[in-house]
């Protein structure tokens, strides 16, 4: 048999060697990143100023210190790894990606400094910056991976720290690039750059923690991907927390309970009436309720019916793919386009004015593709064995669908509908165009009480259905555009709070139902 050139001469040991020094040095920049993120974030959000203190130390100093500590640790790792004091397994090079990243940073840094601080012309700064960037990139490519990762990251951090320390960048510093109408202030840039440098050093440190090489690159990548996931969670939580914080107390203000069954919640149960000094959103809540009910009546039978037909009766082929393309197209159609369509198609035929009914139909059209797609998925995922078993007993296809397929697909269908409700309850643009009239109304549409029989077609009329209405998202929009928010911001926040509560409840219920049924299926 042929000679094996690659046989590992010495068998690689299975266990990873653990270096306490490396672990210690590389954990620090990760910790400082979190500290910089929190402190810098608070500063950026305006909760703290750069001059204020944390634990008796000025924030500007804290941020500078974090930069120096993180950079210092990385540089220490680089020295240790280079001289073999710290055991690592770096590759030959950090690679072109890292090189071009840091090269670009160097290019921009040098370019900005030359052109803006020293006012050099493009012909001077551009070549200099290019040379600088290429030098950095080249150095990284040809250096061993441990150095190529830690040194530039460490130097970046230390450089920004020094800028702040030696007053190259102060809170009072400001830069307005000509012609853009924007000013970058030190108060924003200092915390922002600290966070960015923190992220870079933490990435390098995660890489170093695993001793570089394939494992190190994995750690670095996973750190960034994990940080991204955390950031998204954080954004969601902050959004919700912010709205709750600003809207909750306004919304629950003045609730009276008792005596007896008497319960009054002004914000939710009153209309908007300047004379009575009421500022409630009851009409909008009722409007949204009826819109959702109407859309469901429209979309659920059509959507589920079409899903059953497509999955159970239609042959997979041109017909189904045309319908699929149409459905997905409808799903992507912008809501404002639905609104325009309703304005052109429905409004002239339903009394020539905006109306609740038009809103119901348009929202129904928007809900339709969602119901169809999710129901189709759910019906498709019912195993064929169920159908076969039923058919083998001589049960007709329709009976099988009624008794076996639809009940098994029910959880999926219901989940889809619930999440769909969440989506349309928050839709603003179509309502704005086909339903809205005065957003701040004093009374809610009385649908149930407005049915009237007539002798001429259409025999049943409902005045309330054919007139405009408010709805929660539209109420919020109206509050912004009519300036109510300007005078009374709490009113806007409270409306947003109730809207969010309504919409997210449907999402939470929908997602929980799905998780519940999935767990049940697995068990």
């Amino acid at each position, binding site marked *: 048999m042929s000679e094996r050139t690659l046989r590992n001469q010495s068998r690689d040991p299975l266990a990873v060697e653990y270096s306490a020094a490396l672990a210690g040095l590389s954990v620090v920049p990760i910790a400082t990143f979190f500290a910089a993120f929190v402190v810098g974030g608070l500063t950026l959000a305006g909760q703290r100023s750069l001059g204020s203190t944390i634990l008796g130390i000025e924030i500007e100093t804290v941020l500078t210190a974090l930069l120096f500590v993180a950079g210092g640790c990385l540089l220490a790792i680089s020295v240790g790894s280079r001289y073999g004091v710290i055991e690592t397994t770096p*590759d*030959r090079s950090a690679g072109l990606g890292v090189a071009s990243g840091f090269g670009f940073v160097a290019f921009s840094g040098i370019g900005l400094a030359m052109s803006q601080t020293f006012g050099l012309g493009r012909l001077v700064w551009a070549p200099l910056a290019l040379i600088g960037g290429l030098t950095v990139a080249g150095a990284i490519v040809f250096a061993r991976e441990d150095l190529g990762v830690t040194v530039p990251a460490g130097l970046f951090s230390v450089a920004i720290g020094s800028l702040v320390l030696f007053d190259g960048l102060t809170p009072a510093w400001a830069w307005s690039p000509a012609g853009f109408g924007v000013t970058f202030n030190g108060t924003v840039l200092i915390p922002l750059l600290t966070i960015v440098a923190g992220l870079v050093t933490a990435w390098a440190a995660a890489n170093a923690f695993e001793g570089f090489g*394939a494992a190190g690159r994995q750690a670095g990548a996973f750190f960034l991907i994990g940080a991204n996931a955390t950031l998204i969670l954080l954004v969601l939580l902050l959004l919700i927390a912010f709205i709750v914080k600003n809207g909750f107390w306004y919304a629950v203000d003045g609730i009276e309970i008792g005596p007896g069954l008497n319960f009054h919640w002004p914000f939710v149960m009153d209309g908007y009436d300047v004379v009575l000094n009421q500022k409630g959103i009851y009409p909008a809540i009722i409007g949204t309720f009826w819109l959702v009910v109407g859309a469901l009546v429209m979309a659920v039978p059509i959507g589920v019916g079409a899903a059953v037909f497509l999955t159970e009766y239609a042959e997979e082929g041109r017909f189904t793919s045309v319908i699929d393309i149409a459905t997905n197209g409808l799903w992507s159609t912008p809501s404002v386009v639905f609104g325009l369509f309703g304005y052109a198609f429905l409004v002239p035929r339903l009394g020539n004015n905006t109306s609740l009914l038009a809103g119901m139909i348009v929202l129904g059209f928007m809900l339709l593709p969602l119901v169809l797609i999710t129901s189709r998925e759910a019906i498709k995922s019912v195993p064929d064995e169920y159908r076969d078993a039923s058919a083998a007993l001589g049960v007709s296809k329709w009976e099988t669908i009624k008794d076996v397929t639809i009940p098994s697909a029910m959880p999926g269908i219901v989940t889809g509908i619930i999440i769909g409700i969440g989506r349309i309850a928050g839709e603003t643009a179509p309502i704005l165009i086909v339903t809205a009239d005065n957003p701040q109304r004093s009374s809610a549409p009385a649908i149930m009480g407005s049915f009237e029989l007539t002798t001429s077609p259409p025999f049943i009329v409902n005045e309330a259905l054919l007139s405009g209405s408010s709805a929660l998202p539209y109420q919020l929009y109206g509050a912004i555009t009519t300036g109510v928010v300007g005078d009374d911001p709490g009113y806007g926040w409270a409306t947003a709070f109730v809207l969010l509560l309504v919409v997210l409840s449907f999402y939470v219920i929908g997602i929980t139902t799905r998780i519940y049924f999935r767990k049940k299926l697995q068990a």
Partner: protein
Amino acid sequence: MSNTQNASHDPAESNRDDRSADAVTQTTAGESQEETQTEWTDYEFRGEPKLSVDDLDVYYGDERALQGITMDIPENSVTALIGPSGCGKSTFLRCLNRMNDRIKSASVDGSVELEGEEIYQDGLDLVTLRKRVGMVFQSPNPFPKTIRDNISYGPRKHGDIETGLLARLLGDDSGEREEKLVERCLKQAALWEEVSDRLDDNALGLSGGQQQRLCIARCLAVDPEVILMDEPASALDPIATAKIEDLIEELAEEYTVVVVTHNMQQAARISDQTAVFLTGGELVEFDDTDKIFENPESQRVEDYVTGKFG
């Protein structure tokens, strides 16, 4: 077969004793071990034990898929694992390079040693383990890349082969080495003749048997010590199967091969020793292949290999 017979050495026993002294996980495993071993304790061990499995239990959630497996797999030989469907052969095989780590519900208890080094220890480097213990799967799973890239995939990931811009910048282009490696591995896997003129074609264009040999070549390219194969020929026709069988026998000169098969004749043809698993995830008998097929200790094994059961 060129196995070094080593009759004076009896590592099966001595090794097991050594281990129970230092392994922490199985202080109470003594009894169950005895039970499962009674039927074949007189098996004479050949060669060096490459892998020693000791009292291995595997669970999927609460379901036990393997119970108390203990066996020593000798170096440079073919070990066949046979048994009825669902008895845990694949599960066992996947324990040997910790591929079971990738199944969330799976948990493993017990010890597996590769040349005396525990592979279920904390801080184990999975990458190194899998480099040393390669695996070929039941259905061929080449990457949707060219034939060449399939072979050089492993060495590239381990930094042994570098091509492209970076490598050229560093003056370290191993394109030539890659060519040699590709040729050697394909020859070793008896595929070179068939594909040498289309190395840049997509591997998915190969036939099933060719794909499987490509997967074997891909595995050889990282130069493993042990090759695990899970029914490598089950998806192939008789001619392709015969090629794979020849290949396995040849590989055993340099590698330790563990192969799962459903085909009794195949096991008899290619393996040096055979382990018989029976339903419930228990190892019933492990012995020289000849012994298992001609004169097994256990009645159940006899029933199984003669087709009365299973």
